């Protein structure tokens, strides 16, 4: 790479592509124990080109600050999980950097570590929240039927297409950081504080995101700070690229959740009360805990009408790597619990699961009927759910212990716009130049080419400018407005609408004002009624158990969705098919449990489902006419498919399948490579 001159900027496609003459490699010295007092770090003698850094060498703030928590850039005085960054080593030879890390002596006074989050005391409590409506105890007194269950979801890895990393290089007085991030301005602000410099002195240029499952919200800020520190200390371009195992073991995972729920119903199966206790394992540091606790509780109770609700949630600190978002902020975990509970309630009331949902589901906005009633006939026709469910139910009743081995499950969910920081506005800037070229600028760069094409075609349709003359500027924090995090389908749901609004404004000004014309639009997220403006989906999963080892063999998955304005049906269908296949893989493989802490075996035992193992997937999507704006659909499959799979497994086994992911053996829970009895 050459120094930047004039308007020429250098962008990087992937972090691993970073290469410059005289560059340094950065390695992270990690804690060998899960918890302890950090007494001393003794780096070996290194050559003059090698630099070792500790917390005390940080020139600015030593912690990344979030709304209710902090994350140390490098451990200072104590370590709270195995693999926590203690120091950085950088130098020109990657192998020598690795050797220096190996030879470094770290003296830690080890303390007892806690990995369990279902039993905890106040010292480990990070956040507590409760949600109360009506008088739940009265509901239980008058109940005809009560149902209870404990639904657990275990951690899972995002398994990014490339392990995470960051690169940093000085270009005269500016430090440019390259990292794959959903939130470039968060990286910039973090790096700026850690180095103690002005915001303008740091430029962040995100690299390709790939399928990230919302795992790149804040962690790239930490890696970006590490790379920036190394570049600052060595005055050379620096690349920090984690190995696959390092990324797997020490970066964020899906937050494990244990959800104990009790529901009371009347004789007709109508919900009278819900009482839930949700324990959330946030790991050692929990930057997103507040949002995760809120989302988790809301997702549990936002779909079914219930006059009395009590939900208590606890975010628990454990001595494990930080847990975070995974296809949403915890909604996936409690959607699974809610839909499993719905089936358990239907079974206890002797009502068909689809009918139970019709009785209890909240009507959408001012409509008398919920969107579920519109989806239902389409989904049932596609999947032949009614007939198959009746047949399998008969088989289940006739079967002896162990179940019939055949099951079909149903689940429904909505996807609302969720927010990490509600005050964070979304911004977009459009500029029509003198040569009639339209530039779109936002820091929420489209995650897919499909979204990019949609933005361009919408802009072209409104302004009449040829698609070839519409350009979406590459993201660089010095040239695009801060649009907040690329999260919860914001690219489609918020940014598309903003771009369309900005295009309308450009069209109005076009023949009235002199070129170039610049238009900025800002949108603040509003608190919405849960089911008022949201996409909906319902999924059906049909499976049978292998007669020999009783492994589930999924025959097919059907998913029907209703959303706002659909900008491209083909692209929406493809996106839902991909998400459905991914969500199904999360039910049947990708086992991970921190019951014994972090170890190498976990990595070796973790496997993604391969293409050849995927069943047939059928998707149908159409618009809800009242909703004129595009809405996000990126979480719908994750909210419905695992629960539908769980319901199908429950029918096939004739025993509750309450763990995500789980096994075909209902009496077992998932352990770390080995199974242990519940």
């Amino acid at each position, binding site marked *: 790479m050459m120094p930047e001159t004039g308007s020429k900027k250098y962008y990087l*496609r992937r972090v691993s*592509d970073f290469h410059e003459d005289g560059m340094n490699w950065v390695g992270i010295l990690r804690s060998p124990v899960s918890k302890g007092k950090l007494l001393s770090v003794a780096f070996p003698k290194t050559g003059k080109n090698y630099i070792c850094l500790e917390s005390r060498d940080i020139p600015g703030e030593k912690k990344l600050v979030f709304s209710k928590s902090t994350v140390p850039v490098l451990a200072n005085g104590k370590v709270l999980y195995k693999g926590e960054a203690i120091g950085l080593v950088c130098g020109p030879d990657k192998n020598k950097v690795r050797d220096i890390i190996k030879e470094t002596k770290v003296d830690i006074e080890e303390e007892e570590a806690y990995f369990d989050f279902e039993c905890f005391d106040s010292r480990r409590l990070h956040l507590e929240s409760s949600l109360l409506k009506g008088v739940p105890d009265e509901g239980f007194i008058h109940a005809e039927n009560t149902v209870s269950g404990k639904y657990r979801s275990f951690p899972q890895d995002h398994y990014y297409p490339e392990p995470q990393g960051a690169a940093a290089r000085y270009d005269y007085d500016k430090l440019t950081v390259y990292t794959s991030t959903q939130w470039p301005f968060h990286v910039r602000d973090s790096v700026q504080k850690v180095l103690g410099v002005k915001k303008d002195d740091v430029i962040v240029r995100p690299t390709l995101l790939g399928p990230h*499952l919302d795992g790149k919200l804040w962690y790239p800020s930490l890696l970006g700070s590490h790379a920036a520190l190394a570049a600052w200390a060595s005055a050379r371009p620096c690349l920090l690229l984690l190995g696959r195992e390092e990324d797997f073991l020490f970066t964020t995972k899906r937050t494990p959740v244990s959800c104990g729920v009790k529901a009371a119903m009347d004789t007709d199966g109508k919900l009278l009360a819900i009482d839930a206790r949700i324990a959330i394992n946030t790991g050692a540091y929990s930057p997103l805990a507040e949002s995760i606790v809120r989302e988790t509780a809301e997702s549990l109770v936002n779909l079914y009408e219930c006059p009395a609700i009590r939900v208590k949630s606890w975010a628990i600190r454990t001595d494990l790597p930080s847990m975070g978002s995974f296809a949403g902020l915890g909604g996936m975990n409690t959607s699974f619990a809610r839909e499993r509970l719905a089936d358990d309630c239907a079974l206890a009331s002797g009502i068909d699961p689809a009918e139970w949902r019709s009785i209890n589901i909240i009507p959408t906005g001012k409509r008398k009927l919920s969107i579920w009633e519109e989806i239902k006939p389409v989904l049932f026709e596609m999947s032949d759910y009614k007939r198959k469910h009746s047949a399998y139910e008969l088989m289940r009743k006739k079967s002896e212990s162990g179940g019939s081995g055949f099951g079909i499950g149903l689940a429904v969910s909505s996807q609302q716009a969720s927010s990490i920081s509600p005050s964070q506005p979304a911004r977009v800037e459009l500029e029509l130049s003198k040569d009639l070229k339209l530039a779109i600028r936002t820091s929420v760069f489209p995650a897919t080419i499909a979204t990019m094409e949609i933005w361009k075609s919408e802009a072209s349709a409104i302004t009449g400018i040829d698609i070839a003359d519409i350009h979406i500027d590459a993201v660089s924090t010095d040239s695009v407005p801060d649009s907040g995090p690329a999260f919860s389908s914001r690219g489609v749901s918020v940014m598309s609408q903003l771009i369309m609004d900005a295009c309308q404004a450009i069209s109005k000004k076009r023949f009235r004002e002199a070129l170039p014309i610049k238009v900025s639009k800002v949108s603040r997220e509003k608190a919405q009624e849960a089911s008022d403006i949201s996409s909906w989906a319902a999924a059906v999963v049909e499976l049978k158990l292998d007669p020999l080892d009783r492994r589930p063999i999924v025959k097919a998955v059907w998913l029907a969705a209703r959303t706002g304005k659909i900008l491209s049906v083909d*692209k929406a269908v493809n996106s839902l098919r991909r998400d459905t296949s991914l969500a199904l893989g999360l039910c049947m493989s990708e086992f991970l449990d921190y019951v014994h802490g972090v170890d190498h075996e976990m990595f070796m035992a973790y496997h993604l489902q391969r*293409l*050849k193992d*995927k069943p047939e997937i059928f998707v149908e999507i159409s618009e809800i006419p009242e909703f004129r704006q595009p809405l996000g659909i990126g979480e719908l499959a994750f909210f419905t498919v695992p629960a539908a799979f769980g319901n199908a497994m429950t029918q096939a086994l004739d025993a509750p399948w309450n763990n995500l992911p789980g096994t075909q053996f209902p009496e077992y829970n998932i352990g770390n490579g080995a199974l242990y009895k519940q």
Partner: protein
Amino acid sequence: MNTVFSLNGRKIDISVDPGEALSLVLRNRLGIKSILNDCRMGFCGKCVVLIDNVAMPSCLVPAFKIRNRSIITYEGLLNTPEHKTISREFMKAGIELCGFCDAAIYMALASLLYKIRGKTGREDTVFGGAFSTGRKTHDIGEREVMETMSSVYCRCNTPGLIIDAAKNAIREYGYSGRRHERNP
């Protein structure tokens, strides 16, 4: 030790360590950016190359073992009829890859197309020898397509789309993909 081999038609003479993996030599020393050193255990498929036209994960191949062999990477596949066929079919199917696994997916499918052309000159060695049916070189069945396309580990792939596009590419390239395997 010195190793001489052909890389995308270019003669390479390079000194390698006995334990050095081919993938590291290709990416770090010869600047082949399409190779990703991801898992380094042979299961992610992101470092696949064609060695004498047979697809192999290059992280499992010691660099000294490729002496006098011909290596084709994604860079060498570009602008070939095989690449054009795959691109066309992927575009028709609306497949959008993530930017990380693209090269590996193309190489995996290209290995099947090369087999159709009989370039391998071998009996049926399927993708790294993981699956062998003992059939003739040109006889590519459904299962083989599935196995080959499943050899790349990535969350961005849409299962139905990519398999259908692969079958179409094979059909287009000169083989009737409708024929099923005889002895799976």
